[in-house]
């Protein structure tokens, strides 16, 4: 009889446990597959994207970064995201304060109204806004994009600020008020500093939602004013060179970094 060989830890797992974790592994692979393919494909040296790539190069990164169209769209996406986040944060704080001051049925109704843009399918919001802005003569301009993105990001800010207000000790506000502070200065010097974390989380989330938005923007964008995701959408629909994979990879790197930074400083519990 041979002495039993040294057993590794995975030899001790029961078959069913093996099966379970392989299944989880396959599901995770499925979730990450399109992202992995884009990242690896971006280093291809071919003129069209095949996976796996035959040779490696950085030529598509060079082309992507030097493309004027993509640079312009990135700038527009950033400007739009910042402006929309700023506007919806200001309006969102005020709206949340107004809702928090109300009693139950009215507050719920107002919250439902604010959340409505999340319920309505993006394609419907998109055409509705196209019709509307055309009808009132504004047309597809940067201003209409800012307004549209402000409406779409408002629910996230209001929710985040309301969640913050719930943790605030109301007696502190009352104390400041009874010591002679006006309602306005109570809000600016007492309430807002106490909920600045929630306000920041709401603003960051608003920026992310705006930067990520495709469908409504697709209807309101013009050839001159086009955001990065819409530019990418149009590019993919007509061409297939890997420069889009390079840009996608840069976006994925930015996304992953943002996920890690938010988790480190804000915590995901706040956002979901």
């Amino acid at each position, binding site marked *: 009889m041979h002495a039993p060989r040294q057993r590794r830890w995975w030899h001790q797992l029961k078959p069913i446990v093996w099966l379970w974790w392989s299944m989880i592994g396959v599901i995770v692979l499925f979730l990450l*597959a399109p*992202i*992995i393919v884009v990242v690896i494909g971006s280093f291809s040296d071919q003129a069209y994207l095949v996976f*796996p790539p035959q040779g490696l190069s950085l030529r598509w990164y060079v082309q992507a970064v030097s493309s004027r169209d993509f640079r312009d769209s990135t700038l527009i996406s950033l400007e739009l995201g910042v402006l929309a986040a700023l506007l919806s944060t200001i309006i969102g704080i005020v709206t949340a304060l107004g809702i928090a001051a109300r009693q139950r049925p009215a507050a719920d109704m107002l919250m439902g109204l604010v959340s409505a843009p999340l319920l309505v*399918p993006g394609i419907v*919001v998109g055409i509705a806004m196209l019709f509307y802005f055309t009808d009132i003569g504004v047309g597809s301009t940067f201003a209409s994009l800012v307004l549209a993105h402000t409406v779409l990001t408002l629910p996230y800010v209001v929710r985040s600020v309301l969640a913050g207000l719930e943790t605030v000790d109301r007696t502190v506000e009352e104390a400041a008020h009874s010591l002679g502070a006006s309602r306005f200065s109570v809000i600016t010097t007492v309430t807002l500093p106490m909920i600045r974390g929630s306000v920041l989380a709401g603003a960051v989330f608003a920026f992310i939602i705006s930067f990520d938005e495709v469908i409504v923007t697709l209807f309101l964008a013009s050839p001159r004013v086009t955001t990065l995701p819409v530019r990418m959408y149009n590019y*993919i629909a007509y061409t297939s060179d890997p420069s889009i994979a390079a840009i996608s990879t840069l976006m994925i790197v930015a996304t992953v970094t943002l996920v890690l930074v938010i988790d480190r400083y804000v915590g995901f519990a706040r956002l979901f």
Partner: protein
Amino acid sequence: MRLPPRQAKARRTAAVDRTQTLLLAPGLVLLFGVFMAPLCITLRYSLNRFIAGGSQETAFVLDNYARFILDPYYAAILLRTLALGSGVALVTLLLGYPLAYAIARGRSRWRALLIAATLIPLMTNVVVRSYGWMILLSNSGVIEDALAELGLPRVKLLYTMTGVVLSLTQVMMPFMVLTLVGVLQNISGDLEDAACGLGAGRWRVFRDVLLPLSLPGIVAGSFLVFALTISAFATPRLVGGASVEVMATMIYDQVLNALNWPFASATSIILLVIVLALMIVQGRLLRTRADTPKPAA
């Protein structure tokens, strides 16, 4: 002038009330001016008559709705959209449940990794993900080659319904997983241990303990994924091309190519009504469950 205390208080309450109403003004102006008004215009357009060439005539007719429901071509699009929603909801549930369970019961490091694996796709732009699927599903792409290696027949995946279901499943799965994690986390693991201790096998624990208790999450996740899927545009358009026409891609073509705004409006209103009806039904289902008294042990 000093007011008697009671009057002064009443005046102050009125002032506070006015301030509170003013606080709501900017948000309400924005919502009515840039969201409700556009929807009303869409509803109005849907009753107009289309004039060939891209304009419309003011009218009050239901022709556009009738055309969408009665014309077999458009009725097929409606059915395809609903089938896609059901298919994707079912597959995300089957794949999402085990992952959500692994997250809810996992030890800290595995848990964090699995959550990251769920969040990174969610936060990656949908255009990027659809592009990844276009590469994966393309002719002589990895999936087709892998099937051929296994001796299976080559199936066309890009620009087919199967391909769209596959890619939308990946796009929607994070929503299902996060919804289920929320519910599964609140089910104490002790219940499963107790059932096990009483002699129940894994399957019975799942069927008689976990499944009934997580039903609200299953309902909420499935309705959410269904509603998001039937509204999806970018993935069906990029992965499905012209051969998998759903309501969203049809609306887009009607607005930008056929320039038939009344018909696009009517289709949009139908889509909106379906989504709102789903939300109401879901609300009812979950409320009835919450109201039913739990059977005594």
